[in-house]
């Protein structure tokens, strides 16, 4: 690898990727693939499926680097958003939906399914957990069901027995509230992550 890449900003990395520098893609992978893999694995459970998502996301970054706009957010959040979208697509496909439902049904039967507990387990970053946990239940639950379970907001409305309009405004207000809390807690929102 040419030495300057390891110090390059993510935006410059993206430029180098657009110029067909594979070492720049390798550096982006080194920085962000762990995080992308972690999310995909959490959503899809299966390692092979998660790897496939990571591969798709990085190959897409190579093929269409201009889709990442540094002015709209960090490279990591772009890659995570891509991975989330792909993982959710897979979760919504019929087969995996059935598998997931069976798995969840088993869990419910065995241990009493507790979304709150499960989310507590899976969110490792203390601050984010704290902020998410600090949301009113009416906002937190729909966000969890949508983001971590891959449900559409209409499905979330059915699950929670709330009107669809209520669910979508609560998700929006919850995200806004989290943004405010995370920004004041000093988490570098909008900046690049190392």
């Amino acid at each position: 690898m040419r030495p300057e890449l390891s110090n390059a900003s993510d935006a410059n990395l993206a430029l180098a990727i657009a110029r067909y520098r594979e070492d720049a893609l390798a550096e982006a992978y080194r920085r962000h693939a762990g995080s992308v893999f972690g999310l995909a694995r959490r959503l899809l459970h299966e390692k092979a499926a998660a790897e496939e998502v990571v591969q798709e996301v990085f190959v897409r970054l190579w093929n269409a680097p201009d889709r990442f706009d540094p002015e709209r957010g960090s490279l990591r959040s772009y890659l995570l958003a891509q991975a989330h979208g792909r993982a959710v697509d897979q979760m919504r496909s019929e087969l995996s939906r059935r598998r997931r439902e069976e798995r969840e049904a088993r869990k419910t039967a065995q241990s009493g399914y507790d979304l709150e507990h499960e989310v507590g387990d899976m969110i490792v970053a203390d601050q984010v957990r704290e902020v998410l946990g600090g949301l009113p239940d009416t906002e937190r639950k729909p966000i969890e069901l949508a983001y971590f379970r891959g449900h559409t907001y209409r499905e979330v409305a059915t699950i929670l027995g709330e009107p669809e309009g209520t669910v979508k405004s609560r998700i929006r207000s919850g995200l806004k509230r989290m943004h405010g809390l995370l920004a004041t807690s000093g988490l570098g929102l909008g900046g690049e992550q190392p």
Partner: protein
Amino acid sequence: MTHNELEELLGVYALDALDDDERQLVDEHLASCPRCRAELAAHREVAALLGNAVGESPAVAPDELWDRISASLLDEPPALSPLVRPRGRRSLALLVPLGAVAAALILVVGLLAAKVVNLDHQVTSLNQQASVAKILSNPSHQTVQLTSATTSWHATVVLLDGQGYLINPSMPALSRSQTFQLWALSRNKIVSLGVLSSNPSAVAIQLEPHMTVLMITAEPLGGTPVPTTPVLVRGNLPVGV
């Protein structure tokens, strides 16, 4: 849908929790609304933090996965990714008689059938062939022949409203370490339109109005920022594509 109604959907949009029909409405709105784009960016950052906070810490992707990704880049050079975005629609003169369109359509249908045996990128290919057929069936489409002054190599580009496809290439065989790359002359500068792979067929391309000439060269696998080898075939674009 009103602006307020669309705005209400931004949170669920950021969490990929919209159905396709509504997602499309939001997509269209975002293209013209900087305020909503800014709000979405903030939601995306929060979503990313949520995404970043799950799994083991520190999360590590398997080593062999990078090797696989890297290898897939070599096996399959990037599909053509336009470096420019299309401008507004333009009206085009009718250049090709309808008989030729019908003949080209039959050719494309033949290509479609032949493509089915290509198991690798069946779906993509079929979609692309269908797009080619769609362009050819529109009487406003234009064709550009890319030719060589010294050899019989050639390729055809069919165009409609700045979008086009490279079809029917007859090009030299390349080594495994080479790929074709497409270039355009734009305001006296050569810009890359993307890497075509070693066997380009029905590759999608996107053009901008001030592009005047299309060229193809053979380059090292993965492509290069500027051409490093002589032009194999070239063709002039119609004015105002």
